[in-house]
């Protein structure tokens, strides 16, 4: 699973951080940092995060 966040769109709503804290976090400056290649066990949480993101910034692909 490959996760990408479109930085042009992401507006730090932080919904993804609530839904999938193992994959999405905020750094000291409240900027989003994330694991581009999370383990498969995180898939349901990542899918929830993608649906919850209010600006559709999260993409999941299979590569």
């Amino acid at each position: 699973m490959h996760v990408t966040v479109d930085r042009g769109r992401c507006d730090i709503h932080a919904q993804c951080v609530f839904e999938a804290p193992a994959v999405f976090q905020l750094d000291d400056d409240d900027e989003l940092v994330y694991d581009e290649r999370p383990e498969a066990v995180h898939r349901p949480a990542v899918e929830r995060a993608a649906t919850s993101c209010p600006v559709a910034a999260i993409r999941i692909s299979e590569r």
Partner: protein
Amino acid sequence: MRRVVIVGAGPAAMSAVAELRRQDYQGSILVIGAEPHMPYRRPPLSKHPLPTSHAQLALDQAGRAEATWLLGRSAHHLDRQNRVLLLDGGDEIPYDGLIIATGVRARRLPGRLHQGRPEVMTLRGFGDLARLHGRLQRVTRVVILGAGFLGSELAATIRRLGCSVDLVERDRLPLLGPLGPVLAQRIADEHRRHDVRLHLGRTVDRLHGTDRLDAVRLDDGTTLPADLLITALGSIPETGWLAGSGLVLDDGVRVDNTGRAAPGIVAAGDVARWPHPWPAGESVRAEHHDEAVAQGAHVARTLLGDPAPYAHTLAFSTHIHDMRLHSVGFTGKNYRLHVVKEGPGGRMLAEYRHAGRLVGAITHGYIRDLTTTYRDLPARSCHEPSATSPVHAGQRAAQGAGGRGCVEHA
């Protein structure tokens, strides 16, 4: 269960479809939606930069193949005895399980005031946005009535486009109810800093202009030149079609803490009114994208026979000019605000307390604290022994940034 019907095709519906399939439900799913669009995200509709296409807002397209979508059609009656839904064209749709996800509609200006003028509009859906885009090409003076989240966000967005903005609010501060006086004052200052003219404690009582709108008169006699009036007066749950169904309608569809409205019927999203975690007897209806997604999935499981108490962390954010507010749990003027820390550039982190109990937190600039220290806040406060509270039973919880965070853990 062989036939699930979902009424309303928004994020709650889309999330329910995905969860039904995730739970290996093999039967049919029919979704009936009044708008001509597949489910989409509404939050960007009021924020800079305004979206220009439906594709930018679309939710996960995978759901398209998982259900049959009957779009541009409305349910207008529910016959629970015969488990049949009546559509606008007269079609009868039988169901085994029903998911109510019809959301809310915008409250409008009384007809005697707007008299069908095309320069008076509101913003709820993509259709409204398309009209707004058209208007904004041609106008320079915009009046917005209502300074809640929608009105305040729109004021900021439209100022950035270069129009003049007058923001009219009946309360003494913008967002006073959902945020409380301290933060509401900061929002007011933020509007003024960006040259949004605030008219507080006022409402609109007349529109001027014969062929087209040219001014709006306030109740104190002030006349504001205007080419466009946008109303942002809050919303009304879409439950008209449920009249006579026997379901409990009380500013939304009443559900129990698993999302059930009646046997075989569940409700999710903006339309659903849930039991409040405390004090017992109160109820709450949230209007958040993230809640619609979480509730849609939850009630899908309830419908399939796996009912559990709903316990989702309520998290909300809004961007108004340069202010980015994030909150978790319950917020608003009914609670006491306690500032935890402040920093340069107006950064702040504060807690909301009710009868000594921590019920919510809000920040501008310390988002990470919310996502760490406070992330389990609603559940945590629910586990505290129930406090004797001064809030009258039956009184509604503050909405907006507030809302439900969890339900009673029986």
